């Protein structure tokens, strides 16, 4: 393993040369799409499951064991179905992130005090308005935790899939360097992933902190 100072220098060199820019941008684009899709779909499915408790009871055990499923085992199947492009990688990233979002949405909606829903009825608010004006803001901090987890999981999914079988992307470049014992490339790229996820999570964390801080009793 090379020293961290050398990783930083090598990373600066890689970024300055621009030779990895296409791979980095490709990975970030796929992560971005997988993340946005998982947030939207995860939130909608979470809200639907909260409204349909019978179906929720049926799928709850699946959520409890979901992360024990080796999603990467389905990667060849996705390649057969969708070809060797970005789609199978995107699906892996999406599948890993979406359940964290569903669980967090359910958790947020479960924590809405019943008295707030009674208050909505007192204001004669319809269901959609109640969902938008009361349920969503009330559940927001917990939904936000889901977004944070989705960021991490979509990065894991996409880079992991690229690592296993892909012709480009950061995961592929890490795998290529790994196969060639090229520590001057592999460790700086791993560091780049770490830095990117840390920055995104720090921004989200500070936002989340504001949301929770407003509600913390003194």
């Amino acid at each position: 393993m090379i020293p961290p100072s050398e990783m930083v220098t090598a990373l600066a060199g890689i970024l300055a040369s621009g030779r990895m820019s296409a791979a980095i941008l490709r990975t970030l684009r796929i992560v971005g799409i997988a993340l946005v899709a998982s947030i939207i779909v995860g939130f909608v499915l979470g809200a639907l499951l909260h409204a349909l408790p019978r179906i929720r009871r049926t799928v709850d055990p699946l959520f409890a064991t979901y992360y024990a499923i080796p999603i990467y085992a389905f990667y060849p199947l996705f390649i057969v179905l969708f070809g060797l492009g970005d789609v199978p990688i995107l699906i892996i990233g999406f599948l890993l992130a979406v359940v964290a979002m569903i669980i967090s949405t359910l958790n947020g909606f479960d924590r809405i005090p019943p008295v707030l829903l009674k208050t909505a009825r007192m204001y004669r608010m319809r269901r959609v308005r109640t969902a938008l004006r009361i349920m969503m803001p009330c559940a927001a901090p917990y939904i936000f935790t889901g977004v944070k987890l989705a960021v991490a999981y979509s990065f894991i999914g996409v880079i992991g899939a690229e690592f296993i079988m892909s012709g480009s992307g950061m995961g592929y470049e890490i795998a290529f360097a790994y196969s060639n014992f090229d520590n001057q490339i592999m460790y700086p790229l791993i560091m780049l992933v770490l830095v990117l996820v840390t920055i995104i999570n720090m921004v989200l964390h500070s936002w989340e902190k504001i949301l929770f801080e407003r509600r913390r009793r003194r």
Partner: protein
Amino acid sequence: MAKGEAHVTLQGVTRVYPGVAGQRPVHALGPLDLELATGEFFSVVGPSGCGKSTLLDVLAGLASVTDGAIRFEGVPIHGRVPDGIGVVFQEDASFPWLTVEDNIAFGLRQSGVEAGEVRRRVDHALSLTGLKDFVRAYPAQLSGGMRQRVCIARTLVLEPRLILLDEPFGSLDQQTRLLMGDELLRLWRETESTVLIITHALDEAAMLADRIGVMSARPGRFLEIIETGWPRDRDSRIVARPEFGKITGRLWSHLRVESLKTLGQDRPPL
């Protein structure tokens, strides 16, 4: 509607909760009859689980009656909150993501009230409830009593003609409760609304109300309706009057028996 006329009428009001998962239905309330005059302050006391909160729910239109009828200003209430009724709940119902000001304005904005009118009513409610210095604060930054004041202010801005309060000071200490009672009496005088408060505190019921309805153990019915005879311009100092002790004594004589029934200790020893 002129003062003294029946503002709210309950006739044979009954509420039975259907049995869940093979359990027997629960007869929670009634049959119960009551007339509330316009501008009256009415307290309801009763043992735990006697259906006090159910009474409030059916009165507010938050739950349907199984039998009987409720009329508010002559219009039947049945499972929908009518215009002109405001409810203050026992639990903290303030919205934690909104400031005090936005909490109070929430209902008005939902109803599409014009911004200038919202400003005027919110300012007035802030003055009435003594929250003027906390407009930008979030509920989490306030004490339990102040949060309940936010909820009261949020109800008052809607200018309800009937205000229903479900043990609004239940989580507060005795001194704060008496002081909050003073504030409630002041608001009642200023707004001239009809008020029905549900409470488990006998002194609170006796101090606040023109009339007190004493409820039986479940299914809740009125055992007696006691007239306090207090002047409209009253405050918590009436607790020192000898009549106050007589009223709370009379309330307790009913409630002791009913509470023992609830606890299952009304049977003679074996």
